[in-house]
């Protein structure tokens, strides 16, 4: 099994969202987010699916995440029927603060199945708190998903590299 790069976007100046397009086969896809820094302090990174490169904003996003924190034990981040995936917890943008993580996408290309994802990331929050987010999410609609859109919940993306790979057998 090998990794085949499908798409990559490198943000170097204020950008409101990033589209990663290319889940065109029934393989598993891996997305690497490296060095996400928001322009607004404490901005979460969110994601939505793209169908034929068109954004889906319906309330079909379920997620169950655990935030492992250095200031307290942990916190559950779980929601059903949201209109987006929330992947982080208030990422900071002061010196050294950013988020890095990996997402695996399953069944995206299959129009007869829900799209599943697992995700893990590490971040420094706006209070320089180290947080590890680990979890999973499901887009509860039988549809053909051809990519993901990443965007912050406030402000824009200041920098970061978003790369999608296909796990080819």
């Amino acid at each position, binding site marked *: 099994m090998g990794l085949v790069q499908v*798409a990559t976007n490198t943000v170097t100046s204020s950008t409101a969202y*990033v589209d990663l397009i290319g889940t065109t086969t029934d393989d598993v896809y891996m997305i690497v987010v490296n060095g996400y820094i928001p322009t607004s302090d404490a901005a979460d990174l969110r994601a939505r699916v793209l169908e034929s490169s068109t954004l889906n904003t319906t309330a079909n996003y379920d997620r169950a995440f655990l935030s492992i924190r250095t200031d307290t*034990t942990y916190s559950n981040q779980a929601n059903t029927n949201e209109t987006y995936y929330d992947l982080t917890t208030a990422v900071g943008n002061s010196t050294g603060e950013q988020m890095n993580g990996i997402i695996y996408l399953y069944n995206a290309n299959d129009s007869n199945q829900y799209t599943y994802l697992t995700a893990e990331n590490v971040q420094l929050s706006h209070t320089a708190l180290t947080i590890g987010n680990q979890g999973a999410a499901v887009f509860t609609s039988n549809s053909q998903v051809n990519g993901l859109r990443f965007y912050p919940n406030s402000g824009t993306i200041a920098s970061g590299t978003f790369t999608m790979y296909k796990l080819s057998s």
Partner: protein
Amino acid sequence: MATQEELQALADQEIEDAKPLYKLVNNERLEFTDADYAQAKIDLGNDKWYDQQFGYIQARQEAYGSVQEQLDMQYWDGVNGTTTWADHIAQVKSDNPKPA
């Protein structure tokens, strides 16, 4: 407390003030389309409403001491006849009030 319409108006203005906004699609940097701006306004308006109505939940979760800290407070309250734990909980609730 602001109505949803008032918050949406604020969101609309914030997006207008933030123009131009850009997106990156397969590494090509493009200015937002009208549809992108419309969606950004909806999202920001919804976020403002959600934060106003439910933001206190997350804020309280982050402000409460850990289970270990709270158990320690309760132990020493029992020993000393103090109200440290109850005061802590009340303070967190007071600092992060539930919308009326």
